[in-house]
């Protein structure tokens, strides 16, 4: 049965893998886009992602409701975001370094409180079988799409629209492009950034809940393997555009799924190189779009990356 597809199983597995793997990337990168559009960078989302995964799993184990887990992960992520946003308002405090510290702190807390939850099973998040029309198990597996993926896709469109067409989106962009201009208009720059960082944390926490409650669908200490950091690179790759984040998340997810897919048809060489492909792509894009006299086209002006 599985031999019927032959090499076609590779692109199918990549598509399915991309959809499965991309959701955490999508949520973290959308969250980071909101934060960076306000002029701050939060490298701590890796820690938020891991803590979100742990708290969602623990909540789902204790309450038997995966959606309660998602909610708790979002709240916990928001708390980490608030912490980052609050600390960074003080003069001479470096947002990049605070992010690294929060990455350590969030991961540490997640491992600390997550120990008792490594064993017990939690109810998973539901998925919609879009592939039910097909007889082929590979097609069915590839098209089983989780609800959170659809939420993330809708969110990327909503954010893309909202950045351009709503007052909140405009204020966010003004604060991110010129704090002086925002102050002159009477906006509280620190408060806007606080809210933006908190929202970023909420989304990263929800991304974490997907990791532990759907795919890979269990809680352990190696669950994230740097996906939160990769998502920060992804935002740059997507040029701070939420719609492009969606595409980039699929691309990054697909690159991650390429190795296992090729392994399943007997090609086991180069597994790690495929895994690194998104990093190489992002670096190449960074180099191509920067130049000695211009920094990062399209980047928010207040971002420490572009100063």
């Amino acid at each position: 049965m599985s031999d019927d597809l032959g090499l076609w199983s590779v692109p199918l597995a990549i598509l399915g893998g991309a959809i499965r793997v991309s959701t955490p990337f999508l949520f973290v990168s959308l969250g980071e886009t909101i934060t960076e559009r306000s002029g701050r960078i939060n490298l701590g989302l890796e820690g938020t992602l891991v803590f979100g995964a742990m708290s969602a799993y623990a909540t789902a184990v204790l309450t038997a409701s995966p959606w309660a887990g998602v909610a708790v992960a979002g709240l916990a992520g928001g708390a980490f975001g608030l912490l980052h946003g609050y600390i960074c308002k003080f003069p001479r405090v470096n947002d990049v370094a605070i992010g690294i510290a929060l990455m350590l702190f969030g991961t540490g807390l997640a491992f600390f409180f997550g120990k008792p939850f490594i064993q017990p099973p939690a109810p998973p998040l539901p998925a919609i079988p879009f592939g039910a029309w097909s007889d082929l198990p590979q097609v069915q597996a590839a098209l089983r799409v989780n609800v959170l993926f659809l939420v993330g896709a809708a969110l990327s469109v909503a954010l893309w629209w909202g950045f351009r067409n709503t007052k909140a989106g405009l204020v966010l962009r003004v604060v991110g492009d010129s704090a002086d201009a925002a102050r002159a208009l009477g906006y509280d720059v620190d408060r806007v950034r606080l809210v933006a960082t908190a929202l970023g944390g909420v989304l990263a926490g929800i991304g974490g809940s997907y990791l532990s409650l759907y795919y890979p669908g269990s809680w352990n200490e190696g669950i994230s393997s740097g996906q939160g950091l990769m998502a920060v690179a992804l935002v740059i790759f997507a040029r701070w555009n939420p719609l492009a984040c969606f595409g980039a998340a699929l691309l990054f997810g697909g690159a991650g799924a390429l190795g296992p897919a090729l392994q399943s048809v007997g090609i086991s060489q180069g597994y790690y190189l495929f895994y690194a492909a998104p990093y190489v792509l992002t670096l190449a894009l960074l180099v191509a779009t920067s130049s000695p006299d211009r920094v990062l086209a399209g980047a928010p002006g207040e971002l420490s990356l572009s100063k």
Partner: protein
Amino acid sequence: MVADAAPSKLAADRPRALTSLPLRAWLARRLEALAIPVGAALVGFLLFGLFLIALGKSPLQLIDIVWRGGFGSPFALGNSLQRAAPLLFAALCVALPARLGLVVIGGEGAIVLGGLAAAAIAPPLAGWPAPLAIPLMAGAAALAGAVWIGAVGWLQAYRNVNATIASLLMSSIAIALANHLIEGALRDPASLNKPSTLPVGDAFMLGPMPVIGVHWGLGCGVLACVIAYLLMDRTTLGFAARIAGGNVKAAQIQGLPVGRLIVGFTALGGAFAALAGYFEVAAVQGNANGTLAAGYGYTGILVAFLARQNPLAIMPVAFLLGGIEASSGLIQRRMQLPDATVLVLEGLLFLVVLLSETLYGRFKPFNPHLWTEKREAAAAGGAA
């Protein structure tokens, strides 16, 4: 403005001020640089103590265990120093570029590549005299790290690519590349369960240092910190780097080679980090394998920031953190706390020390410019 109001009064003040003020001002600044980070670290420990109390554990017991597990016996001390060794190198990879205003967080990748380069060059050198082969292995490691992190510096200096993000990406690429080679071209066919390179061979392994009994990585790490300090604080090159870190435009107007400084200092930092990998291979593991990416690069970031990027301060901080990490096993067994306890403490310390950056220049006793303002204000007030 003051000179107009009361020139004679100021002139009368001057002899007294000259004798006492510079020394006091120098002392005050040194005290600030010591008191704020130490105070912040104490606050961090205090917060962690409250965290433990909230969980029903005793902070005093933890202090006792960390003392016994990390510092209280010759064995514990040796264990701590062995863990401190790679941290010294990894922290320099953050501290050297930091003087130029760059946040480089890719030390982990340089460590892995350095270890891999040393392990890869060892089998072809088999049979060579050790005094020749050992420097070659260390040199290969340093070169790999220098090229890798130096490239990050080059991208920042000549292409305006942010060094934080570039180093992060380069680090991930390095780790993937190393895994690819360790499980592929460079794999020892005999290593079945744990993919590794061919062993470097007993002849090229480094023994322990005399008296201390810890491998040579510690001595070389201390030496590297001292060299980095002298380079930064006692040479014109280091002075130029600090100017460039403070204000790139001013440095360029002065004709300083900012680009070459950035490439040079990042490459040096990368070479140091790679040496941590070299010593892990040639003094601890005996080959290059997956455990090279043990997180020393990330703890090194913490060490560098806690030491406020000062190479001399890196030594005690690395020793302290090495000791805390060495006592991790004992904390687990005696207090029934998870192994992540140390990670929580480290994260908390990191946060508090970073937050304390905002306190510099705020306390009057530490800040001579606040004294003189008061003095001038008083002088102006007296004249009016």
